[in-house]
């Protein structure tokens, strides 16, 4: 576990060293701030003291930003050959993938922590459901975890960052739209299955404050499967 932490710290530092982290933080706060406070179905338009507008915007922002963060994590190491140096150190393949997963998740959590002022502000505006809001934040972390799993897998199967980015987006779109759309047109077991696979089914209930173990298992499974296949892909060398 200690090795995972060492790798995660390096990944996090490298985001900040390469300015990627600052760019992502500024863009994330910019987008979510704009759509939470100023435009569209923002807080003032809805006249509700909740952060649903923020959660919905954050979901889409993370949908695009996380593949941008994960795309280089394994693909670049494979391309430059640094993965060889890393894997001949006293670490296992799994520790490398988990370290990278954790490093990326930490950056997302830092970005989410910067939105705490939103939470404080809205809670002053009206009678806020604190439980539902915390549940919404948890939902965003779980959602990010799933996207990072998918992104790491996409990054592990290629040594081209652009391919990794697009592949992660395509898989993301499947979970975000395609399964949802297909489930509308099918009935029975397959319809049920497609509905279960869709991210929105699970995220929507969490962001309203309904914490169900089924949803937790869903997000953990996607993360774990992504990490597992990423590990498998780098094992195959």
């Amino acid at each position, binding site marked *: 576990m200690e090795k995972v932490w060492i790798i995660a710290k390096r990944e996090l530092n*490298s985001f900040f060293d390469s300015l990627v982290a600052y760019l992502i933080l500024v863009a994330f706060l910019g987008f979510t701030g704009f759509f939470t406070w100023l435009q569209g179905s923002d807080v003032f338009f809805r006249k509700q003291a909740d952060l649903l507008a923020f959660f919905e915007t954050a979901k889409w922002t993370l949908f695009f930003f996380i593949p941008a963060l994960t795309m280089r994590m394994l693909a670049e190491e494979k391309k430059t*050959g640094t993965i060889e140096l890393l894997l001949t150190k006293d670490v296992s393949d799994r520790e490398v993938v988990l370290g990278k997963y954790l490093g990326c998740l930490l950056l997302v959590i830092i970005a989410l922590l910067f939105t705490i002022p939103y939470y404080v502000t809205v809670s002053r505006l009206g009678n806020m459901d604190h439980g539902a809001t915390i549940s919404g934040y948890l939902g965003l972390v779980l959602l990010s975890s799933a996207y990072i799993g998918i992104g790491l897998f996409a990054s592990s199967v290629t040594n081209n960052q652009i391919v990794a980015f697009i592949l992660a987006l395509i898989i993301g779109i499947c979970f975000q739209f395609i399964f949802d759309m297909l489930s509308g047109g099918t009935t029975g077991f397959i319809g049920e299955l497609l509905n279960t696979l869709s991210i929105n089914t699970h995220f929507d209930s969490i962001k309203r404050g309904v914490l169900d173990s089924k949803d937790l298992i869903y997000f953990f499974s996607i993360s774990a499967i992504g990490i597992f296949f990423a590990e498998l892909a780098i094992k195959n060398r």
Partner: protein
Amino acid sequence: MDIQIEGLTKYYGPQKAVDSISFAVKTGEILGFLGPNGAGKTTTMKMITQYLSLDDGDIRLGGQSVKETNLKRYIGYLPEHNPLYQEMPVYDYLAYCAALQDVPKDRINDRVREMIRVCGLNVEKHKNIGELSKGFRQRVGLAQAMIHDPEILILDEPTTGLDPNQIVEIRDLIKHLGKEKTVILSTHILPEVEATCDRILIINRGKIVADGTATTLRSQAQGNNLTRTRLKGTDTDSAFKALQSLPLVKKVRIENRDQQRFVIESNGEASEAIFALCVQQGWILLELTPLETKLEDIFRDLTMN
């Protein structure tokens, strides 16, 4: 810690990259690994470092099989193209490698400083690796390989891209380290092998074609002596015939007709007989030089087919 390799085999698809090779390296020995490009040197090294899995055979480090135990921490590895994180400062990178290699937390700074001193990186320690010249990058590569004071060092072409002064420095460093560690280094530079290594292993198409010290390889490769001689006071053809009829002499080659220079291939030392012949015939002997077979020739003989 010694290295024992038995019947090591690796396939890339249907192609055998390493074809059941066996050898052993003793503690304190520096083994030079030679072979043309694509002979299987790097593949073998990658298997010893446990980056690649073995298709067949076994590698034992200090008696333990890499298939059963994780032995990565005993190995320091410098890969062929020395891949490093470009955007990381030298000091941080070495500290990161030390942490990954289980150097205790309170010893990390000492080890990093030690490596920076040994590898002459002091001026560059706060620069990003990407800003360094090739020579300094190579030193960072060596420093990260030795950071945890491993018992085995695997160096894949450690002196490529260095200037002659740096090559001498790195060679001395490797020689110094090699006294207590087990070192395998691969290279294309043949004089380097003679200067640094205790033993030479030449592989070609995945198979070992020669194994021994530079001296034993020389005698094995030729099995006979070469002598160059230059005569005066005779004509080339009769001298040629007389030399050819000497005992021990296998072959005489005229190197320069006008200067009457010959190269004589013989079983054993022929100088004495040549001298005696000259005395007997009253020829003047201008040159009589035993020729050493060059390592390059041995290498070419063994790997060209």
